[in-house]
């Protein structure tokens, strides 16, 4: 079974700016991949090259076993970051039109459209004009336009941006359903938490260069947690005993919690047992690194310029402010 996406040394420059540099990527069929990185990292450019909307300056690619996405367009579903609708078109008409453009002329198309609209809670809008919908409703319709033709490869560029938490959850479910149906899913996001919640493999891009490409599990293993979160059962308890536990390097207060750093050689299991014995705990847990931590870690290692707080802000939900559109 050929891989769904194979990129080799893909490079794209706009004027003096290198948007994507020597990108290698293999997405196996049936995988659920997240491409993460702050705004302007090169995610959208990479996706547009995968879809043959932009041509790379250098490098090779294959999509669904073809030399270009052009030859496999009908099997791909795409939700661009800059998404739009025909304002004056009716919702049902719009979805049918998009399906037709993907060569989906199935006799059951109307039935499927109705079923999908019901599934996303928009049963009553089929005959409404797109401009009459709220922004959230429009986004659901746009997502349906990307999957209505049952694509083998689904590419979503910042699918969660602009959605409220309830609709974010609905979208996650829909993406998982598509994945379970057998579609390969590749989505990009600048919000690390969305990738953590959804995918099993992440690719991290920073300034046009891939800095990480791994399973979520092995990333966690690689960025081995060396700290324990501790909350005392009695908030007024004396926690000085914690510092004396063998294997503990130092103890730092973190709000109502205590952050216990372990020595590099310490055995986590025994330290946790001893910590619990030293002070009665309400909670003791190994602090698992978030993708955000991993990203900060990689980027600050790569370049001394980065100030942690700025980097963290760039990969959180509220970072999706207006940004200059470019090709």
């Amino acid at each position, binding site marked *: 079974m050929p891989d769904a996406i194979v990129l080799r040394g893909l490079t794209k420059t706009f004027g003096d700016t290198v948007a994507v540099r020597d990108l290698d990527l293999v997405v196996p069929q049936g995988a659920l991949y997240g491409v993460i990185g702050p705004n302007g990292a090169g995610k959208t450019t990479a996706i*547009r090259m995968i*879809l043959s*909307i*932009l041509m790379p300056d250098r490098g090779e690619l294959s999509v669904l076993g073809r030399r270009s996405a*052009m030859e496999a*367009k*009908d099997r*791909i579903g*795409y*939700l*661009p970051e*800059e*998404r*739009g*609708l*025909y*304002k*004056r*078109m009716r919702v049902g008409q719009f979805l049918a*039109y*998009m399906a*037709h*453009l*993907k*060569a989906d*002329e199935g006799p059951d198309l109307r039935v499927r459209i109705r079923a999908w609209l019901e599934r996303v809670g928009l049963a009553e809008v089929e005959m409404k004009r797109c401009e009459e919908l709220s922004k959230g409703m429009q986004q659901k319709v*746009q997502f349906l*336009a*990307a999957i209505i033709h049952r694509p083998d490869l689904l590419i979503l560029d910042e699918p969660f941006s602009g959605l409220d938490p309830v609709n974010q959850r609905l979208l996650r479910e829909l993406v998982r359903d598509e994945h379970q149906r057998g579609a390969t899913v590749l989505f990009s996001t600048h919000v690390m938490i969305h990738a953590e919640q959804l995918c099993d493999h992440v690719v991290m891009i920073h300034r046009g260069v891939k800095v990480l490409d791994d399973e979520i599990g092995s990333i966690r293993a690689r960025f081995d947690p060396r700290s324990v979160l501790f909350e005392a059962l009695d908030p007024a308890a004396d926690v000085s005993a914690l510092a004396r536990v063998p294997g503990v390097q130092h103890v730092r207060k973190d709000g109502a919690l205590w952050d216990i750093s372990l020595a590099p050689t310490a055995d986590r299991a025994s330290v946790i047992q001893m910590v619990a014995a030293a002070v009665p705990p309400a909670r003791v847990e190994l602090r698992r690194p978030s993708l955000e931590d991993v990203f900060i870690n990689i980027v600050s290692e790569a370049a001394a310029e980065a100030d942690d707080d700025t980097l963290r802000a760039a990969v959180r939900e509220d970072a999706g402010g207006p940004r*200059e*559109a*470019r*090709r």
Partner: protein
Amino acid sequence: MKKILHIAEREFLATAGTKAFIFAVLVTPVVVGVLILIMSRMWREGPPRVEGEVAIVDQTGQVAAGVQAFLKPDRIAERRQKAYRRMQEAMPPALRAAAGGEDRSKKGIERAFESALGEVPQLSVLALDSGSDVEAAKGPLRATPAKESGAPERLALIVVHADAVERKPGADRFGSYELFVRSKLDVRLTDEIGDGIRDAIVGARIRRSGLDRREVEALTNVDRVPSRTVSTAGEGRTNELLNQLIPAALLGLLLVSVLMSGQYLLTTTVEEKSNRVVEVLLSAVSPMELMVGKILGQFAVGLLVLALYLGLGVIALLSFASLGLLDPTLIVFLLLFYLLAYLSVGAFMAAIGSAVNEMREAQGLMTPVMMVIMIPWFLWMPISRDPNSVLATVLSFVPPLSNFVIMLRLASSTPPPIWQTLLAIVAGAAGVYASLWFAARVFRIGLLMYGKPPNLATLIRWARTG
């Protein structure tokens, strides 16, 4: 191919299915028709009744009586009758029939004729002393006499020069006359008075020379007859008016349909871009497919406009029983040159639409295109007067003008030789190829380009590097 047809279908329905389009295409002719009707009604209102006196200072002493006779109301009415009969004879039978049969039309035209000229003016001619002071005689032209005084209003003052009937010794030319009129006097009345003086002076001169006026008039008059066009289809009266109108109508039709569909193409492309729907489309079709589909869709819109107006024109000609004036091959040529002109202009419009972010930015780029399209309109007169002039011939081979110019020439009374028509088609096709090539390159780059609006130089750079 099926995708292209889907795009074309959507494009067509999204344009021709809107109220705005139906309004523009169907309601505009109705509005124009109603306006014409109102205008003709207003025209029929005619000028108000005129009453007053015309003073004459006749320095020859031989003209005043003639003017007096000429301006008598019954003589004016008589002359109008004659003019009306002449006009009726000159009118083509088809038009007469169109006005509703021989009898009805006679009355109708007579009525229209009378109302156009207004009621016969009631003029009295007052001969002043030949030595009167002209300045003093002008006085009443400025004043408005009180109604109750009963004194007639002075409308005009004629001063006939002393040598108007008899030349001064040694002079080649006769003298003339001067005509002073009250302000805002109806121009038709001024003409009438002028005719009267000239007639009276000519009469006096002829009398003076001892000739018989009737004889002179008979000698100098040759009836003007309408020409008859001889063609393979037979012989018929030359219909000069329609012969000029048909080329202009065909050119107008071509321009309107090309402009209309080109404009729609621009609008929908800008809309897709500013709606951000374009990227979704590009994930399904190539830029070329998208462009071709859109161009095809708007081609159909233009064709619809063309068919509608052409149909109206044919119905109008049918009702005037003058369909024979429209050569069917002209319709074939019209469709062919619509195709060529639309493709070359439309491709440019699509390219411009893809390059800008909103309609406002398109205006600057549109100007050169519009100027080129308007050239044939400005050159309509010189080309239709002399369809085989060097200018017309050269322009027939310069795309995209060639499509319009050759159409005008084909519809004229002296169509160009067949080789020129063929060459114009080849030139038009080359123009289509060039602009499609240009548009395809600009379109591909422009669609995903947001931000600073490009200028023409940028578009050319894109086309060269694209």
